[in-house]
């Protein structure tokens, strides 16, 4: 391992970390703007041109707020909670391939922090860790509402992880690999997995909404029932971390969906573009395409949030266990039969 390798990875990690934070920051702004436009309003427009500095003002406000730790809270866990939520949200980006490799001189720089051969399992592990931040924070607050919310979050995540895992199995049958890099490479041009796995994609997307605690599955923080949910007792930047982690999670799951089902950095006509723009600009165009897909998914997340009312808790469980899981299993069976038939003849 040479020093250049370490520097290269370090720079890549820093860039990705920075990008995901900036995107999360501006997601809060985008969320308010999208909500406003969908409701025939204007949204924030006072701080800077078209309200562009609103996230900075919000961040500053979060930092300046008084920090309150309840007397009866479990102090250390109370502090660990938001940090853990933030950490697990951020490390998910490590295995996502952002673009095909850039060639500078004779050096090939892959635009992926690490290509582990079980990338999907890594993503699953990280996503399921994400609920610990919520659970620990909710429990440590020593507040009934927070605790209820934490329990809800935990059971919701467990329920939907099963359906998510099953919907992925059908995808693995099609791609034959668990490495995200290979899955993306397999979707060259327009051969996106969503064309082969439409049902699997819908299942995965519904589960992704549930895993990120976004509407219509934002039961852990439903105001009408649980005040603020698991972050009722939180204030200042700890609250900011929780809110921020939600947006990073949204970004990561948008990236994962784009990678698994919408071809990542592949787009129709990419061969021609790659051949004509050289080894640096070409892959970067792919990265741009990938980010366009991610932003489209983030917009979709917001669009859904401001359209669909929240599910009731029993409906959520009903949907998870009695609809999504059987559907996912049926999807696996149908996919494997079709693959067997195609390979048999």
């Amino acid at each position, binding site marked *: 391992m040479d020093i250049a390798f370490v520097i290269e990875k370090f720079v890549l990690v820093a860039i990705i970390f920075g990008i995901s934070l900036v995107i999360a920051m501006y997601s809060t702004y985008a969320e308010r703007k*999208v909500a*406003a*436009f*969908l*409701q*025939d*309003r*204007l949204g924030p*427009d006072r701080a800077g041109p078209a309200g562009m500095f609103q996230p900075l003002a919000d961040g500053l406000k979060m930092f300046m707020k008084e920090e309150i730790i309840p007397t009866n809270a479990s102090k250390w866990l109370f502090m660990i909670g938001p940090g853990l939520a933030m950490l697990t949200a951020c490390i998910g980006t490590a295995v996502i391939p952002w673009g095909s490799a850039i060639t500078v001189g004779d050096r090939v720089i892959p635009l992926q922090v690490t290509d582990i051969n079980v990338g999907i399992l890594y993503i699953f592990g990280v996503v399921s860790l994400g609920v610990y931040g919520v659970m620990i924070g909710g429990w440590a607050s020593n507040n009934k509402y927070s605790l209820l919310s934490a329990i809800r979050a935990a059971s919701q995540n467990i329920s939907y992880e099963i359906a998510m895992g099953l919907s992925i199995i059908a995808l693995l049958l099609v791609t034959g690999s668990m490495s995200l890099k290979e899955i993306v490479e397999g979707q060259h041009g327009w051969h996106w997995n969503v064309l082969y796995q439409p049902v699997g994609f*819908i299942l995965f997307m519904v589960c992704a909404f549930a895993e990120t605690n976004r509407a219509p599955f934002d039961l852990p923080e439903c105001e009408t029932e649980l005040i603020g949910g698991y972050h009722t007792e939180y204030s200042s930047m700890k609250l900011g971390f929780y809110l921020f982690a939600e947006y990073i999670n949204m970004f990561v799951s948008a990236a994962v969906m784009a990678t698994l089902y919408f071809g990542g950095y592949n787009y129709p006509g990419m061969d021609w573009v790659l051949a004509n723009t050289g080894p640096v600009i070409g892959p970067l165009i792919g990265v741009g395409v990938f980010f366009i897909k991610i932003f489209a998914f983030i917009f979709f997340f917001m*669009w*859904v949030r*401001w*359209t*669909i009312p929240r599910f009731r808790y029993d409906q959520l469980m009903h949907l998870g266990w009695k609809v999504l899981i059987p559907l996912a299993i049926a999807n696996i069976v149908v996919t494997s039969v079709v693959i067997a038939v195609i390979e048999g003849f």
Partner: protein
Amino acid sequence: MEPLTSKKKVLEQKPLTLAERMYLPAIAKGMAITISHFFKKEATIRYPEVEREFSTNFRGMHSLKRDEEGKERCTACGLCALSCPAEAITMIAAERKPEEKDLYREEKYASVYEINMLRCIFCGLCEEACPKEAIYLDGPIVPADYLRKDFIYGKDKLVEQPLNKK
């Protein structure tokens, strides 16, 4: 009892059809509605910069009028104060001195004329009561303030600017 109208409609709860149980068609319909609003013109008026247009008979802040030569029309007859249902108007009358002939139209004028804007209900009865056409509620919205005493508007705020003042 006999039903009075034929509008009664018995609702019966049918079990959901497959399409309804799938949620997805209804969700797609809802999302189509929201996205159509995305492209509609927003209803917001950016208030401090843009103001909503008032109707022509809007009653706002009072103004004490001057005549064509710039003399104050009010003669402190007290009819406005008498007609005011909220008792918001008080005034003190004074006699015009010969050298003040250009300032006041008649021999008697209001040396103090105060309207308590917190009492005023903007009914416009003072306007109707005035025999000299001296008071009109044709101003803007009364602005907010911090202290109660600042809402008692005197002549400095109520009297119209002189005509010849450039």
